[in-house]
């Protein structure tokens, strides 16, 4: 079973260097998106309520009241 998976991986990805390299770059692209999204999500949860986008509505509402 494991041998079948291994040989499928080998035949599919590692056998040809061009395929290997393209797989590396494609998964680097995907990994970067996932990593950035994930770390931004973690940052936002750690700093919930402290960032400008969280408190913006308070101040924009105040400004509109000032204008009126």
């Amino acid at each position, binding site marked *: 079973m*494991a*041998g079948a998976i*291994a*040989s499928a991986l080998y035949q599919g990805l*590692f056998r040809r260097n061009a395929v*290997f*390299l393209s797989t*590396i770059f494609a998964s*680097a692209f995907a*990994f970067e998106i996932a990593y950035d999204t994930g770390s931004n999500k973690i940052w936002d949860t750690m700093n919930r309520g402290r960032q400008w986008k969280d408190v913006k509505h308070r101040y924009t509402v105040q400004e509109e009241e000032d204008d009126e």
Partner: protein
Amino acid sequence: MSLSSASSSLLRACARQQLPTSRAAIASCQQRRGGATASKSSFDSPFTSAKESSNYKVPDFSKYASKKSPRSNQVFSYFMAGSLGLASAVGAKATVQDFLVNMSASADVLAQAKVEIGLGAIPEGKNVIIKWRGKPVFIRHRTQGEIDEANQVDVTSLRDPEADQDRVQKPEWLVMLGVCTHLGCVPIGESGDFGGWFCPCHGSHYDISGRIRKGPAPLNLEVPSYNFPDEDTLIIG
């Protein structure tokens, strides 16, 4: 001369004598080694004779050898190498991107490079001149008659052929840089032979779409990048 020839012949004789003995020694060595490897297990050192093999016993590593198939070990190695490549590619890209982003304009510079205008204060048929990046910008709230006039012009007859709808996003709002394309004077609004702008420096006439019609200027008045975030706001920049 005779001395040197004698010494060289002596040397040659020595070499000839030495050669058979050394050849024999090598042959015996090889024989001994071949015999040893044949008799002993594959875990024994090949550099010992059978007599002293008990002193040079190489441990049995078969307990530590991988039980998996060679192919799966190979796949694991390639996977690790590929993961290292992936991590390096992401790291290199992030480094280069950080350097390039560092060189681009910062948020405060970008904010200063924009101008926001409330359009509700500009009545129809009036010009407004504002300053943007140190240059004047003309904003004209055109009447329907002026829009029709700008569209009636035969574009092919112009010096810098440009249709009116290519120069405006909303036909009633004409936004363009107030810098004459000739030598950079500021044209005067609502004057000139074509009801648009007139440059007093060298007499260039622009029509109601800011296109050059008469005089020395080579090009139409330049249109900056702008957008309308909502119905009566204009952001230039």
